[in-house]
């Protein structure tokens, strides 16, 4: 039953991912991307990381896809159509590379034998057990699963505190930099005419 659930979610997710990549209309592609994010969140739930699933929905579906939509609205025609795709000469190698990567990864997954005493990836069928109580082996993982918010918080505050503060700095830098890059002093609602294109003569050297 849980396997069927997984298959449904996985197929939906992969179909959305494919749609994102294939659909010409960018808004629809972004919508498909939101669907993919949601499918990934469902997989997180199946992996018993519901905290992360909620974060995934909050950040990706709720925020990132909105940002993408706005980006599309600001750069495209309103309907978001994207007539330009790479010429078909580019298509085939791209698809071939993608398929080759998938084949390699698939081969790697099933060929993996497990380091040392660990079990091979292909052989881990039921997930490792967790404890019912709090003292048996598997108890830390149980704590992490049942109270992930708290455990993640403790880890972020102690072991990963540098990464945590750095993430704050990264966000600030992204905010500051993106505002600086996108901001225009003379920012009036544009009337559709091309903006001032500075006469920056293209240089014509070749390697």
């Amino acid at each position: 039953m849980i396997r069927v659930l997984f298959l449904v979610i996985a197929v939906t997710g992969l179909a959305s991912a494919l749609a994102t990549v294939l659909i010409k209309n960018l808004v629809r592609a972004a919508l498909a991307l939101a669907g993919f994010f949601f499918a990934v969140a469902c997989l997180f739930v199946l992996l018993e990381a519901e905290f992360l699933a909620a974060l995934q929905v909050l950040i990706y579906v709720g925020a990132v896809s909105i940002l993408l939509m706005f980006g599309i609205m600001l750069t495209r025609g309103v309907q978001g159509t994207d007539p330009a795709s790479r010429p078909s000469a580019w298509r085939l190698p791209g698809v071939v590379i993608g398929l080759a990567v998938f084949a390699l990864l698939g081969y790697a997954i099933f060929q993996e034998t497990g380091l040392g005493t660990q079990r091979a990836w292909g052989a881990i069928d039921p997930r490792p057990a967790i404890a019912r109580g709090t003292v048996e082996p598997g108890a830390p993982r149980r704590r992490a699963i049942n109270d992930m918010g708290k455990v993640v918080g403790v880890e972020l505050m102690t072991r990963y505190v540098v990464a945590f503060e750095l993430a704050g700095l990264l966000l600030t830098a992204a905010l500051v930099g993106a505002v600086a890059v996108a901001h225009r002093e003379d920012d009036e609602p544009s009337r559709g005419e091309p903006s001032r294109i500075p006469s920056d003569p293209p240089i014509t050297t070749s390697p």
Partner: protein
Amino acid sequence: MPPIGPGSLDYRDFFFVAPEMVLAVWGLVVLLLDLGLAKRQPAPARRLLVGRVALAGVGLTLAVTLASSLIPLMARANPEDLSTWFSRSTIDYLFDDDPSLFGGTIAGGFDVGVFNLVYVTLLGLVVWMSLAWKFTEEWGEYLALLLWATVGMMLLSAAEELVTLFISLEMMTICLYLATALDKSRTRSAEGGLKYFIYGSVSSALFLFGLSYLYGLTGSTHLSTIRRLLESTRVVGLAANAAGITAILLVLAGFGFKIAAVPFHQWAPDVYEGAPAPVAAWVATGSKIATVIAFMKVFGNALKPWASPSDHILGPGWIGLLAIVAAITMTYGNVAALGQRNLKRMLAYSSIAHGGYLLVGVAALGLATDVTRAAAAVLFYLVVYAFANVGAFAVAVWLVRDKQSDDIDDLNGLVRRHPVLAISILLLMLSLIGIPPLGGFFGKLYLFMQALDERKNAFGSISLIALVGLGFLNSVVSAFYYLRVARAMFLRQPAGEPIAAADTPIGLPILLAAAVVVGSGLSPDSLMSVMQSAATPMLTTPIIVPKVIGPAQGPPAPKKPVPKFEYSKDQVKKMGQMATGGAGPPGGGGPPATKGATTKKAATKDAPATPRKSQNPP
């Protein structure tokens, strides 16, 4: 040791990241100062003031870095000296010569101190260079992004764990994407920023996927644990381990993008040309140093057991892969640089080529028996390369400031008007080629000697010899394009409007860089011994005492009694010289050379022959 905080957090660990904290805060100070002054001051005065405040911040960071790396050194060298200032437990805490901070996510050893100094010094030069002319409207943001990118670099080379490594790598690159695009008056800047961004984020996606496989294979994100687990398996190397190969390939792709190794180099020329010259300098030096160090930590330390099982370069392991990439990279970079008339593009291709040389060093590291020496050779090369390149980009700044272009031909006849600077530039170029008495020569020498030293296996050494031969040939090729700059300066007649005098922002980096390459050339051993001391903690695995993190528990497990490792006072002194040499007073070109010469006899035997490893699982 009193219990401080729950779990594994020890407040004193923040002492070691003080330089990063200062720099991060200073970025905000500069940003808000610029904004606050926006209404009150005319633009040129504001630019100057804010730029000087930024420089002051860099100076402050330099002081803090020195303090945070010298105090532990002093504590190790002579604990009694500090007993008046610090409590006994603090001195014990500082005594650990390779402390792993924050539960083993960050290193705080000698290497971190040395390279923090290098970053901060270079950052000072880059910031100073930016004062030369006005290229962006968003001045405060620009400076803040530079400083924050440096925070990322410092933490990247200190990271001992994949989470921190990933986030600091991203911190560095995201700041650099944005800084690249900040010259909004030039179309190419925006375009360079976008290209950098797209290539960079694709590469981080690849890198991350590789990391996820590494995590899956080992179950840990700590480099030391990964190494321990890989060593514990019977099968060494990558034979019949497709998942490992995939992980290696992906991680290599990620790092390769950042250091512009060949299949992933396309962004470099566009970005170097599009970015404002100081940003390009920072991409070419700071980000390269940090990435190569992280690269060495991941490949030379964590993934060392996968290097090759047989000391055979083409055996199943990552060395062969790296060797091939290195060969292609240096050849391509040099050949492509031959056709460039634009100085920044030329430097871009040449920096691709230098990336290739560095990869030879890392490949040798994989095969080396004496890991420390091999790593030290790479670090030596990095430092010399970085200083020479910063100087070269200062020339680009000069050109852009006065001619609004970066053509090499604009340097024609420079020697007649500015002989000192022209000679300095010549020295830089010669050092980049690798002409004997200069630092670049010794860099290449150490690098290639390391590769040649490994003669355990005939086939392996033959391949390495071939690689070194190729490197040598490439150096010859590179002479052509580097000397084009020299020819323009010395042999050509000045045409058109002459270039105006260089003032401090341009002259200082050039002179200082020249001084560094000359100094390191005159006394390579002293720099090399510092680098060896740095390489030791970098490539050894600190033991992580597993600490159960949780609210209810007793005092944290005491730090492991430290295996005694002698830091002689000599080394402490050298560290100080490093600092003063790097951050010499404005206009002081000489100090590094002369001071370096006095300690020329500082022997390399300080560093232990075999790295101190702790392979025994705790």
